[in-house]
């Protein structure tokens, strides 16, 4: 037999349920714009019924409704999707902005970039060729060469600046990730703790989702939750893994969930540490603050970390392209390191490094960089190799075949320096310069016009010619401060007096008895002016075919580099567009599931309000009934 007051109790539950409903609506409306918020709905269920009477009366009377839980509406599937695409979006964003910056630095097409400086350079030579004895033409060649090297230096310096900016951004990002991981681990502990106490920490779950969404901006990750039942309640152990070089690595270990908010929490077992200047990031145990070679490196992740790593590699690649350009401009040469030289380990296989020949100090055989690293037992440190001082380095780029426009006088200096240069006089066989000189009787003192020379580049060609001071001097040299390093875009300079610049190939004796160039002989200058179209061999700038060589002029090569940059930027732009629209779409779907609809909340508000009113009406009715009963008794 149910109590007299059962109805009052039932109506009270109705009031409570409606109250909870109104509270939830209010909570939802308040958080309509809160990031990471998942709308909540009141999970209402019928209370169990009571038997109406005794003695075989099986009728049951209901006891009203109860709130089972306040449920968060969200989809794990969409969350995972969102995080994966968000990571890809942020990666694409970083790469896009880096490539935009590189485009800005290279500044092509424009009238102030490398391409224009190169064309001015060749034109200055051409002008000198027509007016070889004119001091101003000679000075303008030097000026044009200086402009070209300054543009190259500046571009290379801006690229290194960009490189170091990217490195510091990467470092900030890694700090950010570590801080987020720490927060996620600590929130997961609190969630488990509350769950274990039988509570439902919706706010903390929202907070963790928001943190995970934030984390997806920096890197992609995998999460898993495994329920553990103990003492009648169930809580979830939350784990997070990142992809390492040899498989997934646990960062937050759910089995270490300790319900405390330790600092750092015990469930946070690893964190990220930057391993090298080239942007490698290692996953190291939380107890350690530096990466060792045995630690796995973070690989194949999306997010800003991957974006910065890709960007660092891109910038390095464009720097290498510029170095190839600078070396090809100057031509082959040898230098001996006066100081140690560090080179990026990631560039060992790429041009121009793989085109250089290294001879160890005191050694005789020249080796490729890879052989040199092996034979000298060099080890990688902080992403770089250090080539010791005293090493002789030969650059090989810039070699070309030219045809003499006028006769070339052979001086004793020419013969001793360039005796092994391959030549082919018109109608003759290919031979070396010294063999040709000795094959004629008396020994030849001049190569005829039309002779084909295979020489190592512009500098060598200039040293074969003559200036008003005699034998010509090389035009391009590495800066004096470069410690004997080979020519790079950053250190290429012009350190030559106009009077040392060779314009011609024939000699005469001046009034004071010195051997000087014939003043009106500009055949060499004209030859160099025509080099704008001179074919050379270049390493392919495209990363997809690193071992191929391209044949073309120096300007063709640079044009190809810019074209490559254009293609890369276009791809980056496209992937940003695609990712933005994907994230937008998934975010819409997420919103569709978890977002607060004001219309819906208002409708619910009305129904809860009316239900509350109705329950109140019932209490009032029961009250009247009971009052009536009392009066009648």
């Amino acid at each position, binding site marked *: 037999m149910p109590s007299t007051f059962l109805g009052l109790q039932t109506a009270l539950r109705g009031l409570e349920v409606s109250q909870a409903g109104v509270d939830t609506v209010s909570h939802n409306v308040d958080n309509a714009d809160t990031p990471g918020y998942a709308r909540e709905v009141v999970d209402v269920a019928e209370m169990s019924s009571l038997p109406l009477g005794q003695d075989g009366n099986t009728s049951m009377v209901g006891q009203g409704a109860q709130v089972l839980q306040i449920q968060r509406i969200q989809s794990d599937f969409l969350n995972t999707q969102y995080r994966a695409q968000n990571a890809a979006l942020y990666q694409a964003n970083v790469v896009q902005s880096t490539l935009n910056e590189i485009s800005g630095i290279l500044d092509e097409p424009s009238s102030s970039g490398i391409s224009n400086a190169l064309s001015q350079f060749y034109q200055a030579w051409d002008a000198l060729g*027509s007016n070889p004895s004119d001091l101003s033409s000679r000075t303008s060649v030097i000026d044009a060469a200086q402009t070209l090297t300054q543009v190259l230096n500046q571009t290379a310096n801006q690229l290194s600046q960009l490189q170091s900016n990217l490195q510091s951004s990467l470092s900030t990002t890694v700090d950010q990730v570590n801080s987020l991981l720490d927060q996620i681990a600590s929130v997961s502990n609190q969630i488990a703790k509350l769950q274990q106490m039988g509570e439902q920490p919706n706010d903390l779950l929202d907070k963790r989702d928001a943190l995970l969404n934030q984390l997806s901006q920096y890197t992609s990750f995998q999460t898993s939750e495994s329920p553990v039942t103990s003492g009648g309640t169930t809580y979830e152990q939350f784990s997070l893994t990142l992809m390492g070089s040899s498989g997934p690595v646990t960062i937050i270990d759910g089995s270490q969930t300790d319900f405390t908010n330790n600092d750092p929490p015990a469930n946070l077992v690893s964190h990220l540490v930057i391993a090298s200047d080239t942007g490698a990031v290692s996953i190291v145990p939380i107890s350690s603050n530096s990466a060792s070679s045995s630690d796995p490196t973070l690989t194949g992740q999306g997010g800003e970390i991957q974006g910065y790593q890709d960007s660092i590699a891109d910038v390095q690649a464009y720097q290498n392209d510029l170095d190839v350009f600078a070396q090809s401009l100057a031509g082959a040469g040898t230098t001996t390191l006066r100081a140690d030289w560090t080179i990026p380990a990631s560039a060992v296989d790429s041009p121009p490094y793989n085109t250089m020949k290294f001879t160890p100090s005191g050694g005789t055989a020249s080796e490729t960089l890879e052989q040199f690293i092996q034979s000298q037992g060099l080890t990688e440190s902080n992403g770089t190799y250090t080539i010791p001082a005293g090493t002789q380095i030969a650059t090989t780029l810039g070699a070309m075949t030219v045809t003499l426009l006028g006769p070339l006088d052979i001086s004793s200096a020419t013969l001793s320096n360039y005796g092994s240069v391959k030549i082919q006089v018109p109608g003759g066989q290919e031979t070396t310069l010294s063999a040709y000189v000795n094959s004629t009787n008396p020994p030849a003192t001049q190569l005829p016009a039309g002779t084909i020379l295979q020489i190592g580049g512009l500098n060598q060609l200039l040293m074969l010619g003559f200036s008003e001071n005699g034998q010509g001097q090389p035009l391009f040299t590495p800066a004096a401060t470069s410690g004997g390093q080979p020519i790079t875009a950053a250190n290429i300079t012009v350190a030559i007096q106009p009077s040392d610049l060779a314009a011609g190939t024939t000699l005469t004796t001046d009034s004071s008895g010195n051997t000087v160039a014939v003043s009106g002989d500009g055949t060499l200058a004209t030859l160099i002016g025509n080099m704008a179209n001179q074919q050379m061999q270049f390493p392919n700038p495209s990363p997809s075919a690193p071992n191929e060589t391209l044949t073309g002029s120096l300007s063709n090569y640079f044009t*190809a580099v*810019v074209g490559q940059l254009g293609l890369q930027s276009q791809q980056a732009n496209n992937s940003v567009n695609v990712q933005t629209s994907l994230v937008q779409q998934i975010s819409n779907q997420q919103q569709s599931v978890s977002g607060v609809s004001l219309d819906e909340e208002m409708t619910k508000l009305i129904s809860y309000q009316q239900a509350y009113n109705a329950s109140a009406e019932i209490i009032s009715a029961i009250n009247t009934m009971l009052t009536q009963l009392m009066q009648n008794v």
Partner: protein
Amino acid sequence: MRITQGMLSSQVLYDIENNLQQLSRLETEASTGKRINQPSDDPIGVQNVMTYQMEMNFDKEYQQNATNAQSQLNFVSSVMTEAQNIMSRARDLAVEGANSTETSSDMQALASEVGQLYDQMVTIGNSQYNGLYIFNGANTGAAPYPLQAANLSPGQVSGSLDPAQVATNSGQVLMDLGNGVTIPITVSGNQFFGNPASSNNAFQVLSELYSALNSGDHTQVDNLLNSIDSVIDNMNQVQAGVGALVNRAQMMQTRMTDLANSVTQQLSNVDDADMAKVLTNLNSISAVEQASLEVGAQALPMSLVNFLKPGV
């Protein structure tokens, strides 16, 4: 699909941002007048633009070279005409001197004029253009003929002072006219005035004429007429060659101008924005942008809240 206010606002934002991006791109095109402002705008096109720009720079240089070559060669040619005038005058004097009726004082007068012609010829041999000697091949810095000889009578010059004995530089100063075409803009003195000590060396012939007239040797003067003719023939021939070079320079200049025009045309095809298209697109995009802003402004504040009155 359940639609929420958050979805509406983020979608409106996304769309407006897309419109703005298109607007910004079109505005850049409209304000620079260029279709390619960054390599990524057209990776293939940018390579063409760079190649064409380089080619255009060179075409300008070559045009300038052709102009310079023409003016220098015209100067060379006019100097050559002058040299021929001297030789014709010498021939007239020789015809006069070959006449046996001329008295010895007449002959002396003729010889004195030939002496003047000789000095003038030496001066012509040392002609300079822009400070550079035009008859010394590639060695433009040095005078081909002894400078003092211009102030001496033919009888006084001998040994190293004798222009007739000078071997001039045989090189060439070349002017680059583009596409591998180079033309010489100086002449070797020996080529134009004749080889040293040969019978058709202008200085030698004038010198011999001078001494024949001086000594009143009518027969010798008569004999020299042939040599004078052969000197004039040679000079004519060399000058004709120079004329041909001027023509070539002119032709190359025309060619380079044509080429520069066609490259400019190609560059414009690749690089210039199609203004009609850009402006039309700009108009339509700004209309869309305006519409999306207005619709956003009207649709976003809408919800049931607007229609619920207090106390309902």
